[in-house]
């Protein structure tokens, strides 16, 4: 529970600054700092347990059935990071109080900052990889908000977008990697994953996992070649740079390396990828940092370089190197955060960050200058400061590695070069800013900052000094437990003494310091040399790339969708064919099974009719009314086929739908030209369409044949066995519709109702000319409603309704049911429109079809809900048998009521569609009030 509070108090803290908005600036800062302070206290209360090597975990069940739990885990590594996040976070809150001006929206800033803090805590305290990834993405988003805090500045918006794109890309890679790990190991829980290193390393997915996870880590930690977002993120307010871009967020990447170190490291691939990237980043960052004129630019590249150093250490595949990396994480966080804060103070009090203008500030702000110089010395690795210790360990470790054989000496040499460059830019930071003559045209006269603005810097510098002077006492236990958690094993013996005697690492340090001084002294030549290169602005390139992607996407879309339906339809059909053809080409079974199928004359006749009807529909499609006749021939054959193959329900439905569909199509045709104009498609398009259509037909025919000749167990036996006992009916098809799969049916009548209402809406406001002559130019017959039809249809109506009631009632046991009865009723009613005309029917029939649909749907819904009152699931049916005199034994079932709903919906929908369509041909057409 403590762990839970520790992790989630900051999340609540996000709203605190907003609530405290009305108070003064110091009060807002105070209230904001409260919850993180509580978290930090909670964290420290676990300190001794963690130092003893305990792993404290806490799980809260969430969706247990999916194995999703809220999982928190605190071990040495997590403790170290949580301390950095909360501790430096609190210092940054204090610092920002003085850094932000009156005009800045302070509560918004603090809110974002705490959001970031919560996200970062979530990353380090997660005991589940997916959960960790979630928080990981949250850090990207909150970092976006923080970088773009001064959103009136174009560079801030661009920098934020660049950072989000790069880290977001990495985040997606990480997710893929994490999922692969989960698939390989079978769990996303960190405890399991960390102990499954051998399983992961031997898995065939290992290369993919490693590359994806490393992409996530490298983009976040600004490793070469993904480093370019970090310098642009310097558009953020300096407290953000101090917090996110030196101490925490960019450390998330190396945290990931440390966290998954037991699971992923130890292979040559790890060594090559991680070490090479780290080394390149180390050198590139250090070299570029020397040439920066912007104070924060220098620090940003120096951060990149130090992150490269940490990455390099993790890549060496040596336990001690991993411990050294963890040590350097601590040291870098302290000196770099204090340097950023110092740079912020200089910027704040002198109005510039340009090192060409800032000179000789020592006279104006001696205390700040001293603090910054100590921190910069720690960065350079000067003895008696913390940076020296981890740099010595780094040198010792690169000397020890032998993985790349004879050229292993290259790594220590390059490491020394990197360290020399580091000394050079540290020296430049100190000498250019604080000495080196007088300031040049600064906007304001520099002076010391407010007292409390300097406190965070003082605290951090004091840590640098203390760790540097008494390493074993101050940091020993923390480093030991963090190192142990990182390598998931006992930490090898190491000594945190300052003096190890005269050895090679010390010599390397010496060379680095001397080399750094030499580089700095010859800086004029170097600057001239560097000026001959073109500078690359990553932000501009990024904009260009984004623009090109947009143009490319536009082109692709324009190619797929050029506004022509035919083209889209062709692509869709071709794609469907592709999707079908791939699996079907893998079915190896030949068509041999055909040999033992019998020949039945009626089937052959029917099939020939169907084939001829289909082809004729195509051939005469330009003469539309004939094509319609051919089409209805196909429909008729289909209904006969259903009847022949033991599906009476289907046959009845098909015949009835045939009737309404033909009426519908005839009504439609009434408003259309009677012939299709000659095609504009051209012979090539024609051939293309024929080819595609026939291939699809061939594939579908083959699938059909495979399906028919392949017999497998089906679930249907269940329905047949339970129809009578469970559903109380003998017509299995109907029982499936209204009982077993009642929920499906309900959805289907809902769709039917929606379609009908949609059509009703589309008919309104439709303006179409009423045709007065037929295709041959003859006037319509004067006798619109022939006498015989009128009389016969009128007397047929009650009979048809009676039959429909009969079909409806028997549906549960014999062919029939709501769908069929509804269609019969609809057909009989439409016949009245035919025989008597719209006005005659309207005068006599007051049924509002919309309400018929709605009541049908309501009946179905309420029938479904009724069982809930008796504690049964939705749509449970009830049935029982009763005996009445005269009638005899009969059955009552709730499914019948449900079927009534189906019936009403079908009648309502069909009538709503056809009657309104029919009315369009008369002056009774649907009228809508013009607004």
């Amino acid at each position, binding site marked *: 529970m403590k762990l839970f509070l520790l992790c989630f108090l900051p999340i609540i803290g996000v709203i605190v600054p907003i609530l405290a908005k009305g108070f003064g600036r110091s009060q807002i800062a105070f209230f904001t700092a409260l919850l993180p302070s509580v978290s930090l206290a909670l964290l420290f209360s676990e300190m001794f347990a963690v130092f003893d090597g305990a792993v404290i975990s806490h799980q809260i069940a969430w969706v247990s059935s999916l194995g999703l739990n809220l999982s928190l885990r605190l071990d040495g590594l997590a403790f170290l990071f949580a301390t950095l996040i909360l501790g430096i976070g609190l210092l940054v809150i204090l610092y920002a109080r003085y850094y932000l001006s009156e005009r800045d929206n302070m509560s918004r800033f603090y809110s974002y900052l705490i959001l970031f803090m919560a996200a970062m805590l979530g990353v380090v305290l997660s005991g589940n990889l997916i959960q960790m990834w979630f928080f990981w993405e949250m850090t990207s988003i909150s970092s976006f908000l923080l970088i773009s805090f001064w959103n009136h500045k174009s560079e801030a918006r661009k920098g934020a977008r660049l950072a989000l794109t790069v880290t977001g890309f990495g985040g997606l890679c990480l997710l893929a990697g994490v999922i692969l790990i989960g698939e390989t190991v079978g769990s996303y829980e960190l405890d399991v994953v960390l102990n499954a290193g051998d399983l992961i390393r031997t898995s065939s997915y290992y290369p993919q996992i490693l590359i994806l996870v490393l992409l996530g880590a490298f983009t976040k930690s600004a490793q070469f070649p993904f480093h370019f977002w970090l310098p642009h993120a310097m558009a953020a307010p300096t407290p953000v740079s101090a917090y996110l871009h030196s101490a925490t967020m960019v450390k998330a990447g190396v945290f990931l390396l440390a966290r998954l170190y037991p699971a992923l490291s130890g292979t040559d691939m790890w060594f090559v990828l991680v070490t090479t990237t780290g080394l390149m980043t180390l050198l590139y960052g250090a070299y570029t940092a020397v040439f920066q004129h912007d104070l924060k630019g220098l620090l940003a590249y120096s951060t990149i370089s130090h992150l490269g150093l940490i990455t390099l250490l993790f890549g060496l595949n040596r336990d001690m190197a991993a411990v050294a990396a963890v040590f350097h994480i601590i040291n870098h966080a302290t000196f770099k955060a204090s340097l950023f804060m110092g740079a912020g103070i200089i910027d704040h009090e002198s109005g510039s960050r340009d090192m060409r203008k800032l000179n000789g500030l020592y006279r104006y702000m001696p205390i700040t200058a001293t603090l910054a110089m100590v921190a910069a010395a720690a960065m350079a690795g000067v003895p008696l400061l913390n940076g020296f210790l981890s740099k010595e360990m780094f040198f010792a470790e690169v000397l020890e590695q032998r993985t790349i054989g004879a050229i292993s000496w290259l790594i220590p040499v390059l490491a020394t070069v990197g360290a020399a460059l580091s000394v050079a830019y540290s020296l430049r930071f100190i000498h250019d800013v604080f000495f080196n003559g007088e300031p040049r045209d600064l906007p304001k006269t520099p002076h010391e900052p407010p007292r409390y603005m300097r406190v965070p810097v003082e605290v951090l510098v004091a840590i640098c000094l203390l760790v540097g002077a008494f390493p074993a006492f101050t940091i020993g236990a923390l480093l030991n437990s963090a190192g142990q958690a990182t390598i998931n094993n006992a930490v090898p013996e190491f000594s945190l003494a300052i003096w190890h005697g005269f050895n090679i690492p010390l010599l390397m340090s010496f060379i680095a310091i001397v080399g750094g001084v030499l580089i700095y002294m010859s800086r004029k030549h170097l600057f001239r040399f560097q000026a001959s290169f073109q500078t690359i602005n990553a932000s501009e390139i990024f904009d260009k790339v984004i623009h090109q992607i947009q143009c490319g996407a536009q082109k692709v879309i324009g190619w797929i969708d*050029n506004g*022509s339906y*035919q083209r889209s*339809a062709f692509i869709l*059909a071709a794609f469907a064919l592709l999707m079908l053809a791939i699996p079907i080409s893998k079915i190896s079974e030949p068509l041999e099974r*055909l040999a033992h199928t*019998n020949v039945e004359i009626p*089937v052959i006749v029917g*099939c020939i009719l*169907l*084939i001829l009807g*289909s082809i004729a529909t*195509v051939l005469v499609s330009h003469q*539309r009314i004939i094509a*319609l006749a051919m*089409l209805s021939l196909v429909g008729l054959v*289909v209904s006969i086929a259903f009847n*022949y*193959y*033991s*599906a009476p329900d*289907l046959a009845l439905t*098909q015949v009835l*739908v045939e009737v309404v*569909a033909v009426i*519908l*199509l005839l009504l*439609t*045709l009434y*408003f*259309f*030209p009677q012939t*299709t104009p000659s*095609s*504009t498609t*051209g012979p090539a398009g024609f051939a293309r369409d*024929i080819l595609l*259509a026939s291939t699809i*037909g*061939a594939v*579908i*025919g083959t699938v*059909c*044949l495979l399906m*028919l000749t392949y017999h497998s167990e*089906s*679930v249907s036996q269940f329905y*047949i066995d339970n129809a009578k006992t469970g559903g109380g009916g003998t017509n*299995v098809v109907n029982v499936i519709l209204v009982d077993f*799969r009642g929920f499906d049916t309900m959805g*289907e009548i809902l*769709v*039917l109702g929606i*379609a*009908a209402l949609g059509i009703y809406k*589309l008919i309104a406001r*439709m303006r179409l000319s009423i045709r007065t002559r037929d295709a041959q130019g003859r006037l319509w017959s004067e006798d619109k409603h022939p006498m015989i039809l009128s009389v016969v249809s009128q007397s047929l109506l009650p009979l048809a309704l009676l039959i429909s009631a009969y079909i409806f009632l028997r549906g549960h*046991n014999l*062919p029939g049911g709501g769908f069929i009865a509804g269609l019969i009723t609809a057909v009989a009613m439409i016949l009245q429109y035919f025989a008597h005309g719209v006005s005659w029917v309207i005068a006599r029939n007051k049924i509002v079809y919309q309400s018929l649909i709605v009541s049908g749907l309501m009946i179905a819904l309420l029938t479904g809900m009724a069982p809930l009152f008796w504690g049964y699931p939705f749509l449970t049916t009830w049935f029982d048998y009763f005996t009445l005199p005269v009638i005899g034994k009969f059955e009552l079932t709730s499914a019948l009521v449900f079927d009534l709903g189906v019936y009403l919906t079908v009648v309502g929908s069909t009538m709503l569609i056809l009657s309104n*369509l029919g009315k369009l041909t008369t002056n009774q057409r649907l009228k809508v009030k013009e607004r």
Partner: protein
Amino acid sequence: MEIWFSVAVGVATACGVFLMLRAHTFTLVLGLTLLSYAVNLFLFASGGLTTDSAAILGDKAINSDPLPQALVLTAIVIGFAMTAFACIQAMRARSESGHDHVDGKEQRDISTKTETP
């Protein structure tokens, strides 16, 4: 008989797809209807083709599969609603654009270059 049935389904599908690739709305509706027939027969066939044994519980042993029948039954009714919707859309398009071409206007010949001034 399976081969005959399959050929019929294949031909109906091919004709339906071909009509659906045409350029005029009414032809499209015809194609849609034809394709629905083919699809319904296809779905129906997934239960196997059996004669003389409707899925009514009684004295006869049932061989026919009731499940595809139930699926196809609703498919037929929904198919009608869909056809109706397509019809109305075609009519509406004609009423708005005065044309029954699928794109609302006579398409520039797509086999030649599409960029016209």
